[in-house]
Protein backbone atom coordinates (compact mmCIF):
# COMPACT_ATOMS: atom_id res chain seq x y z
CA UNK A 1 0.00 0.00 0.00
CA UNK A 2 3.04 2.19 0.56
CA UNK A 3 3.67 1.56 -3.15
CA UNK A 4 0.36 3.15 -4.11
CA UNK A 5 -1.23 -0.12 -5.08
CA UNK A 6 -4.96 0.20 -5.70
CA UNK A 7 -7.41 -2.72 -5.49
CA UNK A 8 -7.46 -4.55 -8.81
CA UNK A 9 -3.97 -3.40 -9.84
CA UNK A 10 -1.88 -6.13 -11.45
CA UNK A 11 1.60 -6.76 -10.05
CA UNK A 12 4.16 -8.85 -11.93
CA UNK A 13 6.22 -11.27 -9.88
CA UNK A 14 9.62 -11.87 -11.46
CA UNK A 15 11.18 -13.83 -8.66
CA UNK A 16 12.89 -17.19 -8.44
CA UNK A 17 10.83 -19.54 -6.35
CA UNK A 18 11.60 -18.66 -2.74
CA UNK A 19 10.03 -17.55 0.52
CA UNK A 20 10.17 -14.03 -0.96
CA UNK A 21 7.91 -15.06 -3.82
CA UNK A 22 5.30 -16.43 -1.39
CA UNK A 23 5.49 -13.25 0.70
CA UNK A 24 5.07 -11.21 -2.50
CA UNK A 25 1.96 -13.17 -3.52
CA UNK A 26 0.38 -12.73 -0.11
CA UNK A 27 1.31 -9.05 0.04
CA UNK A 28 -0.26 -8.31 -3.32
CA UNK A 29 -3.46 -10.18 -2.39
CA UNK A 30 -3.66 -8.48 1.00
CA UNK A 31 -3.43 -5.06 -0.67
CA UNK A 32 -6.29 -6.03 -2.99
CA UNK A 33 -4.00 -6.47 -5.98
CA UNK A 34 -3.76 -9.23 -8.56
CA UNK A 35 -0.54 -11.19 -8.66
CA UNK A 36 0.87 -12.19 -12.06
CA UNK A 37 3.66 -14.74 -11.64
CA UNK A 38 6.01 -14.77 -14.62
CA UNK A 39 8.53 -17.56 -15.20
CA UNK A 40 11.78 -15.76 -14.40
CA UNK A 41 13.67 -18.09 -16.73
CA UNK A 42 11.55 -17.40 -19.82
CA UNK A 43 12.91 -15.02 -22.47
CA UNK A 44 12.72 -11.31 -21.61
CA UNK A 45 10.61 -10.40 -24.70
CA UNK A 46 7.97 -12.88 -23.61
CA UNK A 47 8.09 -11.63 -20.02
CA UNK A 48 7.57 -8.07 -21.16
CA UNK A 49 4.74 -9.10 -23.50
CA UNK A 50 2.89 -10.75 -20.60
CA UNK A 51 3.46 -7.84 -18.23
CA UNK A 52 2.27 -5.37 -20.87
CA UNK A 53 -0.70 -7.53 -21.83
CA UNK A 54 -2.22 -7.22 -18.37
CA UNK A 55 -0.92 -3.69 -17.75
CA UNK A 56 0.97 -4.29 -14.53
CA UNK A 57 1.29 -1.31 -12.22
CA UNK A 58 4.59 -2.57 -10.90
CA UNK A 59 6.95 -5.49 -10.59
CA UNK A 60 8.40 -7.31 -7.62
CA UNK A 61 11.68 -8.80 -8.75
CA UNK A 62 15.36 -9.26 -8.16
CA UNK A 63 18.35 -7.35 -9.42
CA UNK A 64 19.00 -10.04 -12.04
CA UNK A 65 15.45 -10.47 -13.31
CA UNK A 66 14.80 -6.75 -13.62
CA UNK A 67 18.20 -6.11 -15.22
CA UNK A 68 17.24 -8.47 -18.06
CA UNK A 69 14.09 -6.43 -18.71
CA UNK A 70 16.06 -3.17 -18.55
CA UNK A 71 18.50 -4.53 -21.10
CA UNK A 72 15.58 -5.29 -23.42
CA UNK A 73 13.57 -2.09 -22.93
CA UNK A 74 14.61 0.33 -20.21
CA UNK A 75 11.69 2.67 -21.01
CA UNK A 76 9.17 -0.04 -20.16
CA UNK A 77 10.76 -0.54 -16.74
CA UNK A 78 11.11 3.21 -16.11
CA UNK A 79 7.45 3.76 -16.95
CA UNK A 80 6.11 1.38 -14.32
CA UNK A 81 4.46 2.73 -11.17
CA UNK A 82 6.87 0.92 -8.89
CA UNK A 83 9.57 -1.70 -8.65
CA UNK A 84 10.22 -3.60 -5.46
CA UNK A 85 13.27 -5.72 -4.78
CA UNK A 86 16.42 -6.19 -2.79
CA UNK A 87 19.68 -4.33 -3.68
CA UNK A 88 18.27 -2.81 -6.84
CA UNK A 89 18.89 0.89 -6.37
CA UNK A 90 21.26 1.27 -9.31
CA UNK A 91 18.64 0.15 -11.79
CA UNK A 92 16.36 2.67 -13.54
CA UNK A 93 12.75 3.12 -12.45
CA UNK A 94 10.82 3.90 -9.28
CA UNK A 95 12.62 1.59 -6.90
CA UNK A 96 11.65 0.65 -3.39
CA UNK A 97 14.00 -1.41 -1.32
CA UNK A 98 12.62 -4.62 0.05
CA UNK A 99 14.33 -4.87 3.40
CA UNK A 100 13.28 -7.32 6.05
CA UNK A 101 11.92 -5.44 9.02
CA UNK A 102 12.44 -6.57 12.60
CA UNK A 103 9.12 -5.00 13.52
CA UNK A 104 6.76 -5.26 10.57
CA UNK A 105 3.95 -2.75 10.71
CA UNK A 106 0.46 -3.66 9.64
CA UNK A 107 -1.23 -0.93 7.63
CA UNK A 108 -3.95 0.99 9.46
CA UNK A 109 -6.66 -0.41 7.24
CA UNK A 110 -6.80 -3.00 4.50
CA UNK A 111 -8.98 -2.62 1.44
CA UNK A 112 -12.18 -4.60 1.11
CA UNK A 113 -11.76 -7.35 -1.47
CA UNK A 114 -14.94 -8.58 -3.15
CA UNK A 115 -15.13 -12.33 -3.86
CA UNK A 116 -15.47 -11.73 -7.59
CA UNK A 117 -12.39 -9.52 -7.76
CA UNK A 118 -9.41 -11.03 -9.58
CA UNK A 119 -6.79 -12.71 -7.38
CA UNK A 120 -4.24 -13.89 -9.92
CA UNK A 121 -3.53 -14.14 -13.62
CA UNK A 122 -1.69 -17.17 -15.03
CA UNK A 123 -0.55 -17.03 -18.63
CA UNK A 124 -1.00 -20.05 -20.87
CA UNK A 125 0.09 -20.69 -24.43
CA UNK A 126 -2.09 -19.11 -27.13
CA UNK A 127 -2.76 -20.73 -30.50
CA UNK A 128 -2.17 -17.50 -32.43
CA UNK A 129 1.16 -16.85 -30.74
CA UNK A 130 -0.29 -14.48 -28.14
CA UNK A 131 -0.35 -16.04 -24.65
CA UNK A 132 -3.69 -15.86 -22.80
CA UNK A 133 -4.01 -14.44 -19.27
CA UNK A 134 -6.31 -16.75 -17.32
CA UNK A 135 -7.87 -14.51 -14.67
CA UNK A 136 -9.12 -16.21 -11.52
CA UNK A 137 -11.19 -14.56 -8.80
CA UNK A 138 -10.77 -14.80 -5.04
CA UNK A 139 -14.00 -16.80 -4.96
CA UNK A 140 -12.62 -19.18 -7.57
CA UNK A 141 -9.28 -19.68 -5.87
CA UNK A 142 -10.92 -20.11 -2.48
CA UNK A 143 -13.47 -22.65 -3.77
CA UNK A 144 -10.69 -24.73 -5.28
CA UNK A 145 -8.42 -24.57 -2.24
CA UNK A 146 -11.30 -25.44 0.12
CA UNK A 147 -12.16 -28.41 -2.09
CA UNK A 148 -8.55 -29.63 -2.08
CA UNK A 149 -8.11 -29.27 1.69
CA UNK A 150 -11.42 -31.06 2.30
CA UNK A 151 -10.92 -33.83 -0.26
CA UNK A 152 -7.31 -34.69 0.55
CA UNK A 153 -7.73 -34.03 4.28
CA UNK A 154 -4.81 -31.63 4.46
CA UNK A 155 -4.21 -30.52 8.03
CA UNK A 156 -1.60 -28.79 10.17
CA UNK A 157 0.45 -31.98 10.51
CA UNK A 158 1.04 -32.14 6.75
CA UNK A 159 4.23 -31.27 4.90
CA UNK A 160 3.59 -30.56 1.23
CA UNK A 161 6.22 -30.44 -1.51
CA UNK A 162 5.74 -27.68 -4.05
CA UNK A 163 7.19 -28.94 -7.32
CA UNK A 164 5.35 -26.76 -9.87
CA UNK A 165 6.48 -23.28 -10.79
CA UNK A 166 4.38 -20.52 -9.25
CA UNK A 167 3.30 -19.50 -12.76
CA UNK A 168 1.70 -22.94 -13.15
CA UNK A 169 -1.75 -23.67 -11.69
CA UNK A 170 -0.64 -26.79 -9.81
CA UNK A 171 1.15 -24.48 -7.36
CA UNK A 172 -2.16 -23.04 -6.12
CA UNK A 173 -2.94 -26.33 -4.37
CA UNK A 174 0.50 -26.70 -2.78
CA UNK A 175 0.94 -23.16 -1.59
CA UNK A 176 -2.56 -22.05 -0.65
CA UNK A 177 -3.68 -25.54 0.39
CA UNK A 178 -0.82 -25.64 2.88
CA UNK A 179 -1.45 -22.10 4.12
CA UNK A 180 -5.21 -22.67 4.47
CA UNK A 181 -4.67 -25.86 6.49
CA UNK A 182 -1.80 -24.52 8.60
CA UNK A 183 0.51 -27.10 7.02
CA UNK A 184 4.05 -26.49 5.80
CA UNK A 185 5.11 -26.30 2.16
CA UNK A 186 8.61 -27.12 0.95
CA UNK A 187 9.63 -25.31 -2.22
CA UNK A 188 11.49 -27.23 -4.91
CA UNK A 189 13.33 -25.16 -7.51
CA UNK A 190 14.00 -25.98 -11.18
CA UNK A 191 17.58 -26.87 -10.21
CA UNK A 192 16.22 -29.50 -7.81
CA UNK A 193 14.18 -31.02 -10.63
CA UNK A 194 17.36 -31.87 -12.51
CA UNK A 195 18.50 -34.13 -9.67
CA UNK A 196 15.70 -36.62 -8.95
CA UNK A 197 17.97 -38.37 -6.45
CA UNK A 198 18.19 -35.14 -4.43
CA UNK A 199 14.43 -34.78 -4.55
CA UNK A 200 13.99 -38.27 -3.14
CA UNK A 201 16.45 -37.31 -0.36
CA UNK A 202 14.33 -34.26 0.34
CA UNK A 203 11.10 -36.27 0.41
CA UNK A 204 12.68 -38.60 2.92
CA UNK A 205 14.50 -36.08 5.11
CA UNK A 206 11.70 -33.55 5.31
CA UNK A 207 9.11 -36.27 5.81
CA UNK A 208 6.90 -34.98 3.02
CA UNK A 209 3.34 -36.25 3.44
CA UNK A 210 1.73 -34.95 0.23
CA UNK A 211 3.29 -34.69 -3.21
CA UNK A 212 1.60 -33.03 -6.18
CA UNK A 213 3.22 -32.76 -9.60
CA UNK A 214 3.00 -33.69 -13.23
CA UNK A 215 3.37 -37.44 -13.89
CA UNK A 216 6.67 -36.99 -15.74
CA UNK A 217 8.27 -35.61 -12.56
CA UNK A 218 7.04 -38.62 -10.60
CA UNK A 219 8.33 -40.97 -13.27
CA UNK A 220 11.77 -39.38 -12.98
CA UNK A 221 11.77 -39.89 -9.21
CA UNK A 222 11.15 -43.55 -9.85
CA UNK A 223 13.44 -44.13 -12.84
CA UNK A 224 16.33 -41.79 -11.95
CA UNK A 225 15.83 -40.99 -8.28
CA UNK A 226 15.94 -44.52 -6.91
CA UNK A 227 12.44 -44.24 -5.43
CA UNK A 228 11.81 -47.97 -5.73
CA UNK A 229 14.74 -48.73 -3.39
CA UNK A 230 13.86 -46.13 -0.78
CA UNK A 231 10.62 -46.48 1.18
CA UNK A 232 9.04 -43.14 2.09
CA UNK A 233 6.94 -43.94 5.16
CA UNK A 234 5.73 -40.35 5.60
CA UNK A 235 4.35 -40.03 2.07
CA UNK A 236 0.61 -40.60 2.36
CA UNK A 237 -0.90 -38.93 -0.70
CA UNK A 238 0.48 -38.67 -4.24
CA UNK A 239 -1.48 -36.37 -6.53
CA UNK A 240 -0.74 -35.95 -10.21
CA UNK A 241 -2.19 -33.80 -12.99
CA UNK A 242 -1.29 -31.97 -16.16
CA UNK A 243 -0.77 -34.85 -18.57
CA UNK A 244 -1.62 -38.49 -19.12
CA UNK A 245 0.33 -40.81 -16.81
CA UNK A 246 1.59 -43.79 -18.87
CA UNK A 247 0.07 -46.76 -17.04
CA UNK A 248 3.27 -48.87 -16.89
CA UNK A 249 5.06 -45.98 -15.18
CA UNK A 250 2.17 -45.42 -12.76
CA UNK A 251 2.04 -49.14 -11.95
CA UNK A 252 5.74 -49.16 -11.24
CA UNK A 253 5.44 -46.10 -8.98
CA UNK A 254 2.52 -47.54 -7.00
CA UNK A 255 4.41 -50.77 -6.47
CA UNK A 256 7.50 -48.84 -5.35
CA UNK A 257 5.55 -46.87 -2.72
CA UNK A 258 2.56 -49.07 -1.86
CA UNK A 259 1.59 -47.26 1.34
CA UNK A 260 0.57 -44.00 -0.35
CA UNK A 261 -2.83 -43.18 -1.83
CA UNK A 262 -2.83 -42.09 -5.47
CA UNK A 263 -5.10 -39.52 -7.12
CA UNK A 264 -5.44 -38.51 -10.77
CA UNK A 265 -6.50 -34.85 -10.97
CA UNK A 266 -7.75 -33.32 -14.20
CA UNK A 267 -8.58 -29.82 -15.38
CA UNK A 268 -7.25 -26.83 -17.30
CA UNK A 269 -5.87 -23.63 -15.77
CA UNK A 270 -9.26 -22.04 -16.58
CA UNK A 271 -11.05 -24.20 -13.98
CA UNK A 272 -8.14 -25.64 -12.03
CA UNK A 273 -8.96 -29.26 -11.12
CA UNK A 274 -12.47 -30.13 -12.33
CA UNK A 275 -12.52 -33.94 -12.10
CA UNK A 276 -10.56 -36.38 -9.97
CA UNK A 277 -10.13 -40.10 -9.49
CA UNK A 278 -8.77 -42.09 -6.54
CA UNK A 279 -6.85 -45.19 -7.57
CA UNK A 280 -7.91 -47.91 -5.18
CA UNK A 281 -5.64 -50.62 -6.60
CA UNK A 282 -2.54 -50.89 -8.74
CA UNK A 283 -3.65 -50.94 -12.42
CA UNK A 284 -3.45 -54.46 -13.82
CA UNK A 285 -1.09 -55.51 -16.60
CA UNK A 286 -3.97 -55.30 -19.09
CA UNK A 287 -5.03 -51.77 -18.11
CA UNK A 288 -4.25 -49.24 -20.84
CA UNK A 289 -5.57 -46.04 -19.31
CA UNK A 290 -7.04 -44.71 -16.09
CA UNK A 291 -10.13 -42.52 -15.80
CA UNK A 292 -10.04 -38.80 -15.03
CA UNK A 293 -12.84 -39.49 -12.60
CA UNK A 294 -15.87 -37.62 -11.40
CA UNK A 295 -16.49 -33.88 -11.00
CA UNK A 296 -15.19 -32.05 -7.96
CA UNK A 297 -18.10 -31.40 -5.60
CA UNK A 298 -17.97 -27.61 -6.00
CA UNK A 299 -18.33 -27.83 -9.79
CA UNK A 300 -20.84 -29.05 -12.37
CA UNK A 301 -19.82 -30.78 -15.58
CA UNK A 302 -21.53 -31.97 -18.72
CA UNK A 303 -20.54 -33.33 -22.11
CA UNK A 304 -21.69 -31.55 -25.25
CA UNK A 305 -21.23 -31.97 -28.97
CA UNK A 306 -19.37 -29.44 -31.10
CA UNK A 307 -22.72 -27.79 -31.88
CA UNK A 308 -23.67 -27.57 -28.21
CA UNK A 309 -26.13 -30.47 -27.93
CA UNK A 310 -25.92 -32.51 -24.73
CA UNK A 311 -24.33 -35.95 -25.06
CA UNK A 312 -25.75 -38.78 -22.98
CA UNK A 313 -25.34 -42.51 -22.58
CA UNK A 314 -21.58 -42.70 -22.80
CA UNK A 315 -21.17 -40.82 -26.05
CA UNK A 316 -18.10 -38.74 -26.84
CA UNK A 317 -18.11 -34.98 -26.59
CA UNK A 318 -16.46 -31.90 -25.13
CA UNK A 319 -16.19 -31.57 -21.36
CA UNK A 320 -17.84 -28.35 -20.15
CA UNK A 321 -17.53 -27.00 -16.62
CA UNK A 322 -19.52 -24.53 -14.52
CA UNK A 323 -19.06 -23.37 -10.96
CA UNK A 324 -17.15 -20.99 -8.71
CA UNK A 325 -13.59 -21.93 -9.63
CA UNK A 326 -14.09 -21.32 -13.36
CA UNK A 327 -12.00 -18.34 -14.49
CA UNK A 328 -13.42 -14.85 -14.90
CA UNK A 329 -11.97 -14.76 -18.44
CA UNK A 330 -8.81 -14.09 -20.43
CA UNK A 331 -7.49 -10.70 -19.36
CA UNK A 332 -8.21 -8.00 -21.93
CA UNK A 333 -9.29 -10.55 -24.51
CA UNK A 334 -13.09 -10.45 -24.63
CA UNK A 335 -13.45 -12.15 -28.01
CA UNK A 336 -11.40 -15.19 -26.97
CA UNK A 337 -13.19 -15.28 -23.60
CA UNK A 338 -16.58 -15.23 -25.28
CA UNK A 339 -15.57 -18.07 -27.60
CA UNK A 340 -14.47 -20.16 -24.62
CA UNK A 341 -17.88 -20.08 -22.92
CA UNK A 342 -21.45 -20.80 -23.76
CA UNK A 343 -24.30 -19.55 -21.63
CA UNK A 344 -27.50 -21.41 -20.91
CA UNK A 345 -30.46 -19.44 -19.60
CA UNK A 346 -31.32 -22.19 -17.10
CA UNK A 347 -27.94 -23.60 -16.08
CA UNK A 348 -25.61 -20.61 -16.37
CA UNK A 349 -22.16 -20.02 -17.85
CA UNK A 350 -20.15 -23.04 -18.95
CA UNK A 351 -16.46 -23.16 -19.81
CA UNK A 352 -15.67 -25.30 -22.85
CA UNK A 353 -12.46 -27.14 -21.98
CA UNK A 354 -11.65 -28.38 -25.49
CA UNK A 355 -11.08 -31.83 -23.95
CA UNK A 356 -12.85 -34.74 -25.62
CA UNK A 357 -14.22 -37.18 -23.05
CA UNK A 358 -16.78 -39.91 -22.58
CA UNK A 359 -18.64 -40.84 -19.42
CA UNK A 360 -19.31 -44.27 -17.95
CA UNK A 361 -22.80 -45.12 -16.74
CA UNK A 362 -21.79 -44.11 -13.22
CA UNK A 363 -20.62 -40.71 -14.43
CA UNK A 364 -16.88 -41.42 -14.40
CA UNK A 365 -15.10 -39.56 -17.19
CA UNK A 366 -12.39 -40.87 -19.50
CA UNK A 367 -10.10 -38.51 -21.42
CA UNK A 368 -9.96 -39.19 -25.17
CA UNK A 369 -7.90 -36.28 -26.49
CA UNK A 370 -8.17 -32.65 -27.55
CA UNK A 371 -10.44 -31.10 -30.15
CA UNK A 372 -7.65 -28.69 -31.16
CA UNK A 373 -3.85 -28.72 -31.55
CA UNK A 374 -3.02 -28.12 -27.90
CA UNK A 375 -0.52 -30.59 -26.45
CA UNK A 376 0.93 -31.25 -23.02
CA UNK A 377 4.65 -31.63 -22.56
CA UNK A 378 5.80 -32.52 -19.06
CA UNK A 379 2.52 -31.01 -17.89
CA UNK A 380 3.06 -27.70 -19.67
CA UNK A 381 0.30 -26.73 -22.02
CA UNK A 382 1.55 -25.83 -25.47
CA UNK A 383 -0.36 -24.50 -28.44
CA UNK A 384 1.63 -25.66 -31.45
CA UNK A 385 0.47 -22.46 -33.17
CA UNK A 386 2.58 -20.46 -30.72
CA UNK A 387 5.67 -22.51 -31.62
CA UNK A 388 4.88 -22.00 -35.32
CA UNK A 389 4.46 -18.25 -34.81
CA UNK A 390 7.97 -18.15 -33.33
CA UNK A 391 9.39 -20.23 -36.19
CA UNK A 392 7.75 -17.93 -38.74
CA UNK A 393 9.63 -14.96 -37.26
CA UNK A 394 13.01 -16.56 -37.92
CA UNK A 395 14.97 -14.94 -40.75
CA UNK A 396 15.45 -17.42 -43.59
CA UNK A 397 12.34 -19.48 -42.77
CA UNK A 398 9.85 -19.67 -45.64
CA UNK A 399 7.52 -22.29 -44.22
CA UNK A 400 7.29 -23.95 -40.82
CA UNK A 401 5.11 -26.30 -38.85
CA UNK A 402 5.36 -27.82 -35.38
CA UNK A 403 4.29 -31.41 -34.82
CA UNK A 404 3.93 -33.25 -31.51
CA UNK A 405 4.53 -36.96 -31.15
CA UNK A 406 4.00 -39.18 -28.14
CA UNK A 407 6.90 -41.15 -26.83
CA UNK A 408 6.17 -43.65 -24.03
CA UNK A 409 9.60 -43.16 -22.49
CA UNK A 410 10.17 -39.44 -22.94
CA UNK A 411 6.58 -38.16 -23.20
CA UNK A 412 5.50 -35.63 -25.79
CA UNK A 413 8.21 -34.47 -28.17
CA UNK A 414 7.94 -31.50 -30.50
CA UNK A 415 9.49 -31.49 -33.94
CA UNK A 416 9.87 -28.30 -35.96
CA UNK A 417 9.68 -28.87 -39.71
CA UNK A 418 11.10 -25.91 -41.59
CA UNK A 419 11.62 -25.02 -45.23
CA UNK A 420 14.27 -22.34 -45.81
CA UNK A 421 14.13 -19.33 -48.11
CA UNK A 422 16.30 -19.84 -51.22
CA UNK A 423 19.93 -19.53 -50.21
CA UNK A 424 19.23 -19.52 -46.47
CA UNK A 425 21.11 -22.00 -44.27
CA UNK A 426 19.12 -23.40 -41.36
CA UNK A 427 20.20 -26.07 -38.93
CA UNK A 428 19.00 -27.56 -35.66
CA UNK A 429 21.18 -25.37 -33.47
CA UNK A 430 20.20 -22.03 -35.04
CA UNK A 431 16.48 -22.93 -35.05
CA UNK A 432 16.55 -24.01 -31.39
CA UNK A 433 18.49 -20.91 -30.35
CA UNK A 434 16.00 -18.69 -32.21
CA UNK A 435 13.03 -20.38 -30.48
CA UNK A 436 14.80 -20.11 -27.12
CA UNK A 437 14.98 -16.32 -27.54
CA UNK A 438 11.18 -16.08 -27.93
CA UNK A 439 9.61 -19.04 -26.17
CA UNK A 440 9.78 -20.61 -22.71
CA UNK A 441 12.23 -23.48 -22.62
CA UNK A 442 9.51 -26.13 -22.52
CA UNK A 443 8.23 -24.92 -25.91
CA UNK A 444 11.57 -25.13 -27.71
CA UNK A 445 11.33 -28.00 -30.24
CA UNK A 446 13.21 -31.18 -29.34
CA UNK A 447 14.18 -31.86 -32.92
CA UNK A 448 14.36 -29.86 -36.12
CA UNK A 449 13.87 -31.22 -39.63
CA UNK A 450 14.93 -28.97 -42.52
CA UNK A 451 13.32 -29.78 -45.90
CA UNK A 452 13.33 -27.88 -49.20
CA UNK A 453 9.51 -28.08 -49.26
CA UNK A 454 6.88 -29.05 -46.70
CA UNK A 455 4.19 -31.46 -47.94
CA UNK A 456 0.87 -29.91 -48.89
CA UNK A 457 -2.58 -31.30 -49.58
CA UNK A 458 -4.34 -30.93 -52.92
CA UNK A 459 -5.94 -27.74 -51.60
CA UNK A 460 -2.57 -26.26 -50.68
CA UNK A 461 -2.83 -26.68 -46.90
CA UNK A 462 0.09 -28.08 -44.92
CA UNK A 463 -0.24 -31.84 -44.76
CA UNK A 464 0.65 -32.60 -41.15
CA UNK A 465 -0.09 -36.31 -41.52
CA UNK A 466 2.98 -36.67 -43.70
CA UNK A 467 5.24 -34.95 -41.19
CA UNK A 468 6.15 -37.78 -38.87
Amino acid at each position, binding site marked *: MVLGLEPGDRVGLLLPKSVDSIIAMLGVLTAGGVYVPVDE*QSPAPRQQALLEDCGVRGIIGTRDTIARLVELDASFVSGLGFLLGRDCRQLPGRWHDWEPSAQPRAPASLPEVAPDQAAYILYTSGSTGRPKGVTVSHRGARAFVDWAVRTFRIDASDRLANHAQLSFDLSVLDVFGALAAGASVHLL*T*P*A*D*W*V*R*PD*YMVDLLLNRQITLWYSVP*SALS*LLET*EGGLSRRPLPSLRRVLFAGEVFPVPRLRSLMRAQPEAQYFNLFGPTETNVCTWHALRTVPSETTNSIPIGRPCDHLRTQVRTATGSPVRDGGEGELCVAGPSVMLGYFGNDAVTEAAFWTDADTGRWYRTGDRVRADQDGTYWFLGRRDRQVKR*RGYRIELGEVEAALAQMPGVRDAVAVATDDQT*QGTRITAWVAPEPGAAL*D*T*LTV*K*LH*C*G*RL*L*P*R*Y*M*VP*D*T*VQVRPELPRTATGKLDRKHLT
Partner: protein
Amino acid sequence: MNVDPVREFIAREFLGGTDPAALESTTPLISSGVIDSVGTLRLVLFLEETFAVEIGATEIADGALDTLAAIGLLLDTKLAGK
Protein backbone atom coordinates in the same frame (compact mmCIF):
# COMPACT_ATOMS: atom_id res chain seq x y z
CA MET B 1 40.06 -28.94 -19.96
CA ASN B 2 39.38 -30.30 -23.41
CA VAL B 3 35.59 -30.30 -23.62
CA ASP B 4 35.40 -31.92 -27.06
CA PRO B 5 33.79 -35.10 -25.66
CA VAL B 6 31.08 -32.88 -24.11
CA ARG B 7 30.68 -30.94 -27.36
CA GLU B 8 30.27 -34.21 -29.27
CA PHE B 9 27.80 -35.58 -26.71
CA ILE B 10 25.61 -32.47 -26.94
CA ALA B 11 25.70 -32.39 -30.76
CA ARG B 12 24.78 -36.08 -30.92
CA GLU B 13 22.11 -36.16 -28.21
CA PHE B 14 20.38 -32.79 -28.54
CA LEU B 15 21.17 -31.42 -31.98
CA GLY B 16 20.42 -34.36 -34.23
CA GLY B 17 24.01 -34.93 -35.17
CA THR B 18 24.84 -31.31 -36.01
CA ASP B 19 28.54 -30.76 -36.66
CA PRO B 20 30.00 -30.37 -33.12
CA ALA B 21 32.17 -27.52 -34.38
CA ALA B 22 29.02 -25.39 -34.73
CA LEU B 23 28.75 -25.32 -30.94
CA GLU B 24 30.80 -22.38 -29.73
CA SER B 25 32.19 -22.24 -26.24
CA THR B 26 29.75 -19.44 -25.36
CA THR B 27 26.61 -20.89 -26.97
CA PRO B 28 23.90 -20.93 -24.27
CA LEU B 29 22.74 -24.49 -23.78
CA ILE B 30 20.25 -24.64 -20.92
CA SER B 31 19.01 -21.04 -20.67
CA SER B 32 18.25 -21.15 -24.41
CA GLY B 33 16.24 -24.37 -24.29
CA VAL B 34 18.74 -26.22 -26.53
CA ILE B 35 18.88 -28.74 -23.65
CA ASP B 36 15.69 -29.15 -21.60
CA SER B 37 15.36 -30.25 -17.96
CA VAL B 38 15.43 -33.97 -18.72
CA GLY B 39 18.30 -33.36 -21.12
CA THR B 40 20.14 -31.51 -18.36
CA LEU B 41 19.90 -34.60 -16.20
CA ARG B 42 21.34 -36.67 -19.06
CA LEU B 43 24.17 -34.15 -19.43
CA VAL B 44 24.90 -34.26 -15.68
CA LEU B 45 24.98 -38.07 -15.69
CA PHE B 46 27.29 -38.01 -18.73
CA LEU B 47 29.69 -35.59 -17.03
CA GLU B 48 29.65 -37.52 -13.76
CA GLU B 49 30.35 -40.80 -15.49
CA THR B 50 32.91 -39.53 -18.01
CA PHE B 51 34.93 -37.34 -15.65
CA ALA B 52 34.23 -39.10 -12.33
CA VAL B 53 32.92 -35.96 -10.65
CA GLU B 54 29.73 -35.13 -8.73
CA ILE B 55 27.57 -32.17 -9.73
CA GLY B 56 25.12 -30.61 -7.28
CA ALA B 57 21.80 -28.88 -7.83
CA THR B 58 23.16 -25.48 -6.76
CA GLU B 59 25.90 -25.67 -9.39
CA ILE B 60 23.27 -26.25 -12.07
CA ALA B 61 21.22 -23.32 -10.73
CA ASP B 62 24.27 -21.06 -10.86
CA GLY B 63 24.65 -21.59 -14.60
CA ALA B 64 27.71 -23.83 -14.31
CA LEU B 65 26.46 -26.00 -17.17
CA ASP B 66 25.07 -23.30 -19.45
CA THR B 67 27.99 -23.08 -21.88
CA LEU B 68 30.86 -25.31 -22.87
CA ALA B 69 33.23 -22.73 -21.38
CA ALA B 70 31.40 -22.87 -18.05
CA ILE B 71 31.37 -26.68 -18.11
CA GLY B 72 35.13 -26.69 -18.78
CA LEU B 73 35.69 -24.35 -15.84
CA LEU B 74 33.53 -26.47 -13.55
CA LEU B 75 35.38 -29.64 -14.54
CA ASP B 76 38.76 -27.94 -14.06
CA THR B 77 37.76 -26.84 -10.56
CA LYS B 78 36.42 -30.22 -9.57
CA LEU B 79 39.33 -32.20 -10.97
CA ALA B 80 41.87 -29.83 -9.37
CA GLY B 81 40.23 -30.49 -6.01
CA LYS B 82 40.70 -34.23 -6.24
